[in-house]
C-alpha cells in the first residue's frame, strides 16, 4: 500500500504502548469469550461453583443440551423466519432504493430521512401496536397471527425493511449510471435494467443487506418473546427462557447453557467469517448493529 518509509511515518504510537494497549484489549475481549468455550466443556457442577478452567473436559453438554432445552425447534424456527425476512427485505429494499437513488420526486428526502430515523425508533414502540393489531386480528378478521411464524416474519419486516433499504441506498449511490443509460438508449425499460443490470451489479450489497436483515431477526428477543408460543419460539427466546429457569431450585445446568449460547452464536459468527470484508463495511455505512 505504501513505501516502507511512509509506513514508518504512519506509525502513531511507540512500540511499548502499542503492545500494552493491544494486549489489554485482547485479554479484555477474550476472557468472557474463552469462558463460554471452557464452561461449555466443563461439567454443570464445575461451572456453578465458579471454575474458569475446567477440572475435567468433556463434550457432554453438547449432547445433553438438545434434550434439556428445546433448542432444535428454536433454531429451525429462527432459520425459517429470518431467511424469509432476509430475502423479502433485500429484494424489496433494492427496488425501493434504486428509485430513491436514481429519480427525484416530491417527498424523496423525507423518505430518506425517515429510513435513517426509523432505525432509532425503540423496538418497544413498534412491538406494542403490532401486538395489539395481531391479537385483535382474530376478532376482526378471523385470523390467528400471534404465535405463528408468518406473524413474526411480518413483525420483523418493521425493522428489517427500512434497514435493508438504507443499506442499498448507500450502495447504489456509488454505482455509476453509464451502463443503465447505455441500456436505455438501446431501448431497455426499467424492469429490464433493474433485472439485468442493477441486480447483478449490486449482488454483493444485496447479499449483505439480506444478511443484516437475517441477523436483526436472529438477534431479536423483544418481538419473539411476545409474538411466539412454545412451538414457534426462536433460538434467542429458547435460550433466554432456558437461562431464566436456571436460578433458584435445583442444580443450574450452566455448562449446557454455555453450550447452547455457543450454538446460537455459531451461525452469526460463521456468517461474519464468510463475509467479513463486506459486512464490516456495511456496519459503518448503516451505523446500526
Amino acid at each position, binding site marked *: 500500500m505504501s513505501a516502507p518509509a511512509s509506513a514508518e511515518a504512519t506509525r*502513531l504510537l511507540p512500540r511499548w504502548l502499542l503492545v500494552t494497549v493491544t494486549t489489554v484489549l485482547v485479554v479484555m475481549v477474550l476472557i468472557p469469550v474463552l469462558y463460554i468455550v471452557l464452561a461449555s466443556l466443563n461439567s454443570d457442577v464445575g461451572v456453578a461453583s465458579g471454575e474458569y478452567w475446567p477440572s475435567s473436559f468433556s463434550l457432554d453438554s453438547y449432547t445433553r443440551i438438545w434434550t434439556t432445552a428445546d433448542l432444535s425447534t428454536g433454531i429451525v424456527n429462527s432459520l425459517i423466519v429470518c431467511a424469509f425476512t432476509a430475502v423479502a427485505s433485500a429484494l424489496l429494499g433494492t427496488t425501493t432504493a434504486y428509485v430513491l437513488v436514481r429519480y427525484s420526486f416530491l417527498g424523496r428526502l423525507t423518505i430518506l430521512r425517515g429510513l435513517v430515523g426509523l432505525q432509532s425508533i425503540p423496538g418497544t414502540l413498534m412491538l406494542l401496536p403490532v401486538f395489539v393489531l395481531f391479537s385483535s386480528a382474530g376478532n376482526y378478521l378471523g385470523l390467528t397471527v400471534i404465535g405463528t411464524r408468518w406473524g413474526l416474519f411480518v413483525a420483523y419486516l418493521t425493522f428489517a425493511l427500512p434497514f435493508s433499504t438504507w443499506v442499498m441506498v448507500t450502495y447504489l449511490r456509488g454505482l455509476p449510471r453509464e451502463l443503465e443509460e447505455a441500456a436505455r438508449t438501446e431501448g431497455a425499460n426499467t424492469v429490464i435494467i433493474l433485472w439485468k443490470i442493477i441486480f447483478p451489479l449490486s449482488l454483493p450489497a444485496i447479499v449483505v443487506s439480506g444478511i443484516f436483515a437475517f441477523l436483526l431477526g436472529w438477534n431479536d428477543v423483544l418481538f419473539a418473546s411476545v409474538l411466539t408460543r412454545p412451538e414457534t419460539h426462536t433460538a434467542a427466546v429458547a435460550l433466554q427462557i432456558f437461562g431464566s429457569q436456571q436460578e433458584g431450585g435445583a442444580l443450574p445446568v450452566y455448562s449446557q447453557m*454455555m453450550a447452547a449460547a455457543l450454538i446460537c452464536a455459531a451461525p452469526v459468527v460463521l456468517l461474519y467469517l464468510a463475509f467479513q470484508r463486506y459486512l464490516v463495511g456495511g456496519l459503518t455505512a448503516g*451505523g446500526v448493529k
Partner: protein
Amino acid sequence: MTTLVRPPEKAASKKEQRRRGVTERQRPLWLLTPGGVLMILVVLIPLAVALWISLIDLDQYSLRRWVEAPFIGLDNFVESFSSGLLNSIWISVSFAVLSTIATIPIGIAAALVTQNKYKGRALVRAVFLIPYVLPSFVVATVWRTMLQPDGVVNAWLSKVGIEGGLWLTGPRSYWALILVEIWAAWPFIYLMALAALQSVDNEVHEASAVDGAPWWPKLRRVILPYLRGPVLLACLLATLNHINNFTLPFVLFGAPAPEDVNVMPMLVYVTSFQSLRFGLSAAMAVLSLVLIAIPLFVYLRAVRLDVHDEGGRR
C-alpha cells in the same frame, strides 16, 4: 460512514441536470409500490396505531376489541409520570451517556493500535470484532452466568481478597449493566474511528514525521482532529443504541428488572406485557420517543453538516 455523510444531491449535482432531461418524464415511481405499500403497512400504520393506543384506555379485557376502547385523552400521559417514568428516563439517559463516554477512549485506542500493519494484525482485528459480532442475547447469557453469586467473577474477586456480593440485583446491577454494555459496544466506536483514521492522507503523516514531532503532540494536534467528526457521529448513534437496548437488561436481569436497572424499554415492556396496561405503556413509549428525538435530530443535522466540512477540511 463515508457513504452515509455524502448526500446524493451534492455528489451528483452535475449529473442531476442531465438526468432531469433524460428521464424526468418516465420516472418509474410505480417501482416504489411494493416496498412502499409494505412500509406503510408494517411501519406507518403501526406507528399511527401506537399514537392512538396512547390516548385510549386499553387493557387485557379491551385488547381484542381495541377499536371500541374508551378514549381518555392525555390521562395515560399524566399517569405515566406517577408510574416511575422519570426515574426510568434518568436511569436510561445516565446509563447511555456513561456507556458512550467509557467506550470512546477504548474504541479510539483500539483503532490506533490496528492502524499500522504488523504480523498478526488481521487476527487482532478479528478479536476486536468478537464482542460486536456475538448476538446481544448470547453476551447477556454469558455475563449473567459469570456474575452469579457463586460465579466466576466472585470466585476471582475473593481470590484477591475482595468481597464479591450480588451483581444482578440491588444497586450494583446498574454498574453490571454498564460494564457489560461497554464490553459489548466499544467495537462500534473502534470501527468508526478506524474508518476515519484510514482516510487521513499519507502526506499528513509524512509532513509531521519530517517535523520530527514526538508521538503524543503529533497524535493530539494532527491525527485526533481528523477523528473528531466521525467519532462524535458514532457517539450519537451509540447513545441512541444504548437507550434503545432492550435485549441486554432483559436477558441479564429478567423481567421485571431490578429497580436500579429499570431502563425505559424494560419499563414499557413490563407495563404492557406483564401489567397488561397497553394504553399506559404506549404513552410511555411515545414519551420515550421524545427522548430519542433529541439526539436523533442532532444526528440527522450533523450528518448533513459533515458534508460541508468534507471539501474544505484542513
